């Protein structure tokens, strides 16, 4: 791939200014020098912070290495891991049996994670029921569930939300499932549909990443060194993990480095330029057992991608020619401290308190072909702290869960325009209102009880308050005040009828909302060819949803399956639409009241969307013999805008997976699997301009992709996996529109060999 070298930059480290102020116009040199020094100091602190994180992890690793007795690890997946695959936390914040929970759920266990051997989180999730993704770039994808995407999906790590107040639809980085290091995952919980007690972002569903924790059983010390190679992008990844137990302390420490080249797609697409990137991640989890009932867990994780290019704007077909268009930084750092007390009290049988700190950075660096000496660097940072308190109590046959969630966020956003030959820069407003804050506070209660031995009811409600603060004075527009408070209640009511011991019929009704975040309210930037400008709108209402679902779950010793039908009614959906300012639909810089060339039209986020989304999701696993497993899933979603009848943006195609797996309990435990992933063509509006727009009705073609996977243990400590993905070298993607030259998805890998090795010590 042709690497683009920036004309002038003293270091390869991406600049990460933490803007303390901004100015709309060029600052005088003397004044700017002081500001630039502040930016550089902030950038240096960022770099120091990363180094500090690495140093701490190395120290933890060293401590872990010498902390425990070196007992050889056992082979195979730990039994605790297997047992936990039957549990799901993300429905009502209490671990419960997946069969007994009244929701459409999927749990991907450690075994399946290792078999899939995905490079990214979306690689792992894309074969699951109800889940699709828009692969905007190599190594990242925007999640879609039940026709709703990104900001409508609640993504959590160990029950702590990572959606911050800058999560978007699908345009830049945070919401693209690229901030999670897959090597740290123990299992993944997916809940489809509105989840009332977890968080208001969960309109489409929840993805909860459960991270790996200390050693299983009595192992004092162990670890793995892994490698993964993928031929389509010549990607190489190397995860290292160490775990153990020493007295009351158990720990799990690890890291991952990967280098990914340009991705070669199937058919006649060939290698897609500007799609390579590098990635590094680290994680640590230390658990202290205070007693048999009480524990304290401290965890840290960090992930950063480097060298990510906005490939859509660098390809020859792009409308505006760029010499460079980098997405940097792409970074998340997160720390949590969790206290658990399972001793019985009058008011609680279980108490869980989690405090968290989460910082996410993203930015873009652009150099146009027309102005090759000017670099425009836009940077956004969200710092979030929060506390979750969950209390569980059994009263008679009632299992009551109640608690509070509070969080506070502050964002920094600025744009620095640098004249590269002179190395002088101007700092202006960024994408968002710099210094704006976002606070949320919620209380929730959930009750689950048996009415009779045949009927169980689960009902919950969550009241949330969301407060934004911020103000600025934008030339032309004047003062903008972001101060606002949105309040509302989400609720859920589920009935489970236990028709037989392993047959449940389920019905549910839900009411949910999602409060507008700072991305919705404070965006200000010129789009594409600068013919349109998006301006802030602080006065929006929450998006609302009413949802109904009915399902069945059936389970025997050899079969497990579920099928759900859902019907979602959305109103006040936030969409970017033409708007006005001071009575005009454009920025009237000339003051003549008529739109002249160079005066951009105005777009604004507004509560205009109304939609119906319906669908079915079904999945099964059938084991007719101990060595044979058949499994698959099917999803069909239909959705339309209630005003126009046009397809709602990003309604998923009909899609599914069918697979057969052979496993053996012989010495080397060989296994082999053949799977088919299928998707129909889909017609949708692309949502990049305005949602209700017949001019953006596009067709994404369907596909069938076959994959052959296998693996075996070689000796006591060594495990290999191998896969030939996309056997027929099919050209495929989700939401890859044929007529648009930009803002479309990347083609997914063509036929490729994926090799993985794991050495366990």
């Amino acid at each position: 791939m042709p690497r683009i070298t920036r004309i002038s930059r003293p270091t390869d480290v991406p600049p990460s200014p933490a803007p303390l102020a901004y100015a709309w116009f060029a600052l005088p040199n003397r004044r700017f020098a002081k500001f630039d020094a502040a930016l550089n100091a902030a950038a240096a602190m960022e770099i120091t912070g990363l180094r500090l994180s690495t140093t701490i992890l190395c120290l933890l690793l060293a401590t872990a290495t010498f902390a425990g007795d070196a007992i050889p690890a056992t082979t195979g997946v730990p039994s605790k891991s297997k047992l936990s695959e039957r549990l799901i936390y993300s429905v009502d914040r209490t671990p419960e049996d997946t069969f007994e929970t009244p929701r459409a759920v999927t749990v991907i266990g450690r075994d399946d994670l290792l078999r899939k051997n995905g490079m990214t989180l979306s690689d792992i999730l894309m074969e699951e029921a109800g889940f699709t993704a828009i692969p905007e770039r190599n190594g990242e994808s925007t999640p879609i569930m039940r026709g709703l995407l990104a900001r409508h999906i609640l993504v959590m790590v160990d029950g702590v939300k990572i959606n911050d107040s800058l999560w978007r639809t699908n345009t830049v980085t945070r919401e693209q499932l690229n901030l999670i290091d897959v090597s740290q995952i123990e299992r993944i919980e997916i809940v489809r549909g509105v989840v009332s007690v977890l968080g208001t972002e969960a309109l489409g569903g929840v993805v909860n990443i459960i991270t790996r924790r200390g050693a299983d059983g009595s192992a004092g010390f162990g670890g793995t060194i892994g490698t993964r190679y993928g031929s389509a992008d010549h990607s190489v990844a190397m995860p290292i993990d160490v775990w153990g137990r020493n007295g009351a302390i158990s720990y799990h420490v690890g890291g991952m480095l990967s280098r990914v080249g340009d991705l070669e797609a199937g058919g006649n697409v060939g290698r897609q330029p500007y799609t390579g990137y590098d990635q590094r991640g680290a994680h640590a989890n230390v658990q202290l057992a205070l007693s048999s009932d009480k524990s304290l867990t401290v965890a840290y994780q960090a992930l950063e991608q480097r060298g990510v290019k906005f490939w859509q704007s660098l390809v020859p077909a792009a409308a505006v020619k760029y010499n460079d268009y980098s997405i940097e930084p792409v970074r998340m750092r997160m720390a949590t401290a969790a206290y658990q007390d399972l001793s019985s009290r009058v008011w609680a049988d279980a108490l869980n308190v989690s405090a968290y700190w989460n910082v996410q950075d993203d930015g873009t660096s652009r150099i146009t072909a027309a102005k090759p000496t000017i670099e425009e660097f836009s940077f956004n940072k969200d710092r979030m702290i929060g506390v979750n308190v969950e209390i569980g109590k059994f009263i008679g046959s009632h299992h009551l869960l109640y608690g509070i969630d509070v969080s506070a966020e502050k964002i920094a956003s600025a744009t620095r325009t640098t004249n590269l030959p002179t190395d002088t820069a101007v700092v202006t407003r960024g994408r968002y209102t710099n210094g704006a804050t976002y606070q949320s506070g919620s209380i929730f209660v959930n009750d689950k009880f048996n009415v009779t031995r045949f009927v169980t009811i689960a009902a919950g409600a969550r009241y949330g308050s969301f407060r934004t603060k911020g103000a600025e004075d934008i030339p032309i527009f004047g003062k903008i005040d972001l101060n606002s408070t949105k309040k509302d209640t989400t609720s859920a009511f589920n009935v489970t009828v236990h028709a037989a011991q392993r047959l449940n019929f389920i019905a549910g009704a839900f009411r949910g909302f999602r409060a507008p975040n700072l991305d919705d309210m404070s965006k200000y930037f010129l789009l594409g060819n600068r013919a349109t400008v998006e301006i802030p709108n602080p006065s929006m209402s929450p998006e609302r949803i009413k949802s109904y679902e009915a399902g069945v779950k059936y389970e025997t010793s050899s079969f497990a399956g579920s099928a759900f039908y859902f019907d979602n009614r959305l109103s006040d959906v936030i969409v970017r639409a033409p708007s006005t300012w001071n009575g005009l639909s454009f920025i009237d810089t000339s003051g003549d009241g008529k739109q002249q060339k160079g005066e951009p039209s105005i777009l604004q986020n507004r509560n205009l969307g109304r939609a119906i989304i319906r669908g079915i999701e079904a999945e099964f696993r059938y084991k007719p013999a101990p060595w044979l497993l058949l499994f698959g899933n099917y999803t069909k979603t239909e959705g339309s805008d209630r005003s126009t009848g046009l397809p709602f943006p990003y309604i998923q195609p009909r899609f599914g997976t069918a697979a057969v797996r052979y496993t053996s309990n012989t010495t080397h435990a060989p296994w082999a699997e053949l799977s088919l992933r299928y998707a129909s063509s889909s017609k949708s509006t692309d949502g990049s301009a305005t949602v209700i727009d017949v001019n953006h009705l596009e067709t994404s073609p369907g596909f069938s992709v076959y994959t052959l996977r296998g693996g075996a243990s070689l000796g006591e400590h060594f495990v290999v996996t191998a896969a030939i993905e996309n056997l027929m070298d099919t050209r495929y993607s989700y939401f890859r529109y044929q007529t648009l030259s930009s803002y479309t998805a990347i083609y997914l890998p063509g036929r490729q060999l994926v090799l993985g090795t794991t050495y366990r010590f």
Partner: protein
Amino acid sequence: MSARFKQTIRLLLAATFSVAIGPLAHAASFKVVVNNGVHAESLSKKSVSDLLMKKTAKWDGGEAVVPVDQIEASAVRSDFSRAVHGKPTAAVKSYWNQQIFSGRELPPVEKPSDADVIAFVRSTPGAIGYVSESASTEGVRVVAVQ
């Protein structure tokens, strides 16, 4: 307030009360059994609870405790949970789910019948379990619960 309304309220309260305390009305009908190698004649309820909940890891003699539970659906487990743990089976199950989920501890093995529990306790040094009052306890030691 009409008399009919008051009567309805009374009926609803009575129904709620009966649902709430219904499970408590069962008399305890179980025997605690241990492996013959365990030298215990009687144990307090709290001790038995701690042994079954893995809060006590070793017997006084230093031998590891190996608890065994009945399956969730069994009637004797319901009685035992109420009488010894002081909470319903669902609460005990929830406790273990939290332990598993936190990556900390596994619940005791579960056996589907009294006979299976007895067989396990008989053949496993340090084992403790419980069975129905009417179950045969040949080959194991019955411990009084105070």
